[in-house]
């Protein structure tokens, strides 16, 4: 296996080869060992400066990246759009070039619009890591999800994974679909008709509108948060009815003939996508995902720094 990625930026799962994903996983496994040592820090990215540019709110992804960068001994600067020059009308390219002029090597960017990371990569010289671009991709989330599945049940290939919820407004869904497909899993999406992109089956995804049927089919269920803030109009009458149709509770899980794995990219709306007893059950690997997120992001940053 090559020890170098085929890409200079991590813009989306779409651009990655299966070998890239495997390399990220094996590197993340090593970093996870580091994270469990008494001294959790390595000098791998000493002298590398990373800018975390968050043009959209984020708590866990930002913390996870920042921690990953610090564990690798990188110098870190943080920038968020509120109160910055962006609100004064500066363009994205100008904002980023101003930051890069301070000798920054890598940029982790979250942005509310699809394609923003790709756009930036065409106009600036740093390595770009997409930390979520609108409803397009969120590659590190997909990598950590697949890594967590693999860690828990051995392999992703041949497994059946259903992604439940608001697929239309989700970057996590698209990156997950692409990542899981590259690793040989079967993918299904499940949710209200209005929240499932009409042509999604054309990208090799099964579509099921009935939650019970979807859960009976799958080995793993990835429960997405309802993105109320990205819904410009009402797609269903009320959250209460959404829960009645698409919420996972313990009774439903126990009525299945098998034990399935429950993932959630967070933050959880307890009592909406999943009830508390499901979130806190042994089937849920939600906190493993968070832990693995740091290791995956360390691996991505480390490997992209090698391409410099």
């Amino acid at each position, binding site marked *: 296996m090559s020890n170098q990625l085929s890409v200079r930026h991590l813009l989306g799962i779409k651009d990655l080869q299966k070998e890239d994903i495997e390399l990220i996983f094996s590197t993340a496994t090593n970093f996870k060992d580091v994270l469990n040592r008494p001294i959790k820090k390595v000098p791998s990215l000493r002298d590398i400066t990373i800018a975390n540019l968050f043009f959209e709110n984020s708590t866990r992804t930002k913390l996870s990246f920042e921690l990953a960068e610090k564990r690798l001994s990188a110098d870190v600067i943080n920038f968020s759009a509120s109160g910055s020059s962006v609100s004064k009308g500066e*363009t994205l390219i100008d904002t980023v070039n101003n930051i890069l002029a301070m000798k920054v090597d890598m940029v982790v960017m979250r942005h509310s*619009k699809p*394609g*923003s990371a*790709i756009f930036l990569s065409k106009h600036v010289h740093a390595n770009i890591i997409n930390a979520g671009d609108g*409803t397009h991709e969120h590659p590190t989330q997909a990598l950590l999800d697949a890594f967590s599945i693999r860690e828990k049940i051995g392999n992703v290939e041949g497994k059946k994974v259903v992604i439940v919820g608001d697929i239309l407004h989700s970057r996590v869904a698209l990156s997950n679909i692409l990542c899981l497909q590259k690793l040989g899993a079967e993918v299904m999406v499940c949710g209200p008709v209005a929240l499932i992109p009409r*042509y*999604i089956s054309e990208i090799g995804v099964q579509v099921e509108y009935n939650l019970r049927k979807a859960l009976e089919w799958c080995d793993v269920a990835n429960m997405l948060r309802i993105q109320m803030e990205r819904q410009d109009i009402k797609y269903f009458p009320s959250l209460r009815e959404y829960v009645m149709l698409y919420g996972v509770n313990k009774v439903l899980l126990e009525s299945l003939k098998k034990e399935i794995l429950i993932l959630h990219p967070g933050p959880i709306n307890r009592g909406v996508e999943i009830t508390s007893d499901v979130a806190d059950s042994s089937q849920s690997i939600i906190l493993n995902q968070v832990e693995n997120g740091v290791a995956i992001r360390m691996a991505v940053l480390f490997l992209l720094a090698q391409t410099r």
Partner: protein
Amino acid sequence: MKLLIRQVEIADPTSAFNGKIVDVFIVDGNYHTIASSISTEKIPADTQIIEEKNCCLSIGWMDMRSNFREPGEEQKETIKSGQEAAAQGGFTAVLLMPSTKPEIQTRADVEFVMKKSEANAVTVFQAGALTKDCAGKELNELYDMQLGGAIVFCDDKRSIADSGVMMRAMQYAGNINTRIIAYADDKGLSRESITNESAVTTLLGFKGSPSIAEEIDVQRLVTLTEYTGQHLHISGVSSKAAVEVIRNAKARGVKISAEVYVYHLLLSDESLNEFGTNYKVKPPLRSEVDCKALIDAVIDGTIDVVVSDHSPEDPESKVVEFDYAAFGMIGLESAFGVLQKALGNRSTPNLIAKILSVNPRKILGLPTVSIQENKKADCTLFSKDEEWVFTSKHIKSLSRNTPFMDMKFIGKVKGIYSNSQWVTAE
């Protein structure tokens, strides 16, 4: 001036010379002699002679949809630079859309454009804004604008959602013997979407506007046209389904005509894969299936007119995130190349003359032009088979927002003669 164009094939369905290879001698704005061969001895010494291989002389082309950004955004395009772009593209006339800043919605606004565009080879016609600020609510003073020179009315690419307003606008246009150009878009379905709804755009993270947003609104417009008995021209047909609605309506004798933007014939949403903002257009690029259906519709006459939809934008409006980018591309200079590339061997000189000259003038109620002796000379000279590469030297527009840079085309505009002026194309 005197001009002799040697050995050209005439493309003018109404002329006795149509399809024939002749010499054309033009004196002071009129066709003087058209004959299979004109001896040099018979013409004055100061005659400019043009001799090009394998060329056609078509009745002058008219672009039925251009945006010159004057008044308001002269850094993107002025009336003068737009006219130069039109001449480069082979157009002897253009119809300007009213959505400048501010909109062209009073007689004074129209007269400003008329005045500014005078004494140029390219004749400028102006469409007046149909409703106040193109907001689709209140009718503008159409008759007054008509007296000032506006020949047709529209709200550019804004559909009038209120069917009552649209119906009364059509009836009033009938009163004053003018026409309306409509844009079909059901906003409840298209929402604020900036791409087509398809598997391609799903992979790019876009919600997408379904083509039924266009189809349903075309259906509504057809019904209103039947009800009012007026004529309606539908602009920006981009989907196979909308073509079908128009085809069926025409078969029933409904008085509608339709136009397609030339880039919709060649480009599909597959072009969006790198989020290139020059591919961000309205209506959005649709699928390959739609492209094919549009080309068939141009060939069989369901779509009457092909237009450039010339929409100049500066880098500030285009070198930004895809969502924030302005819609549109420049198109006058590349229109013929793109059209030829899309039509391939289905293109004929007569088809070109029909969709770029005869039909636009007919729909707009303008006098027809013809290549006949003693008639006013208004013509476009083009090569059918010259291979060339589109580069910045071909762009006369002040803007550069085109996805066709460095594209190879077959068939090239050589120049225009109009308003007693010959303009050579680069």
